[in-house]
């Protein structure tokens, strides 16, 4: 069983479109995240939810909107896609937000905007 699963794995879309990436975790964790990995392989946090409550919102354009229907799911919706949004988006989860809690990642969603 996949612990953190996200769909779709690959997404190619045109500029200006709206798209969503879905994420589910079956680890029973309270906290979920969206990370973006750029072409230089740096992983940067975008959002974090703890028990369905938004606790981290880094400097991300308003076109990106996370939604957490329950603590096992965290979806990412992107409006008006731009070329610069092309990247790999990773969903992740951890047990709470305390220091040192291990973060477990999904397989990634490769977004290409053309």
């Amino acid at each position, binding site marked *: 069983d996949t612990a953190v699963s996200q769909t779709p794995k690959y997404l190619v879309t045109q500029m200006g479109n709206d798209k969503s990436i879905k994420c589910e975790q079956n680890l029973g964790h309270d906290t979920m*995240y969206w990370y973006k990995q750029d072409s230089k392989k*740096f*992983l940067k*946090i975008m959002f*974090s939810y703890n028990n369905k409550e938004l606790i981290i919102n880094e400097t991300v354009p308003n076109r990106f909107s996370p939604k957490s229907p329950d603590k096992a799911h965290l979806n990412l919706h992107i409006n008006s896609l731009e070329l610069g949004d092309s990247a790999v988006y990773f969903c992740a989860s951890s047990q709470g*937000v305390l220091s*040192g809690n291990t*973060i*477990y990642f999904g*397989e990634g969603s490769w977004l290409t905007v053309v």
Partner: protein
Amino acid sequence: EDQVTQSPEALRLQEGESSSLNCSYTVSGLRGLFWYRQDPGKGPEFLFTLYSAGEEKEKERLKATLTKKESFLHITAPKPEDSATYLCAVQAPGYSSASKIIFGSGTRLSIRP
């Protein structure tokens, strides 16, 4: 500014040739240092967490060590299946602990048979 720097960017070794990867960090009040392995087309896979200087952890051919300024990932007698990108991340104090996890850009390790 909190920062994580990994070196080298890429490392090619012969099978059985031991070596070390470096992760240097500048952060006030380290809460934890993490090592992850990332295979092409996959998400990062957790390896180790280190909390304080002097701590060491081992898993198969890998051993992670921590000082006040850097961490090393030692790989002993590597095999081709150890080829991957190894990511280091540090957790610093922030308004929420989860917010201040900073990743390095990784070391691409390639082991030739």
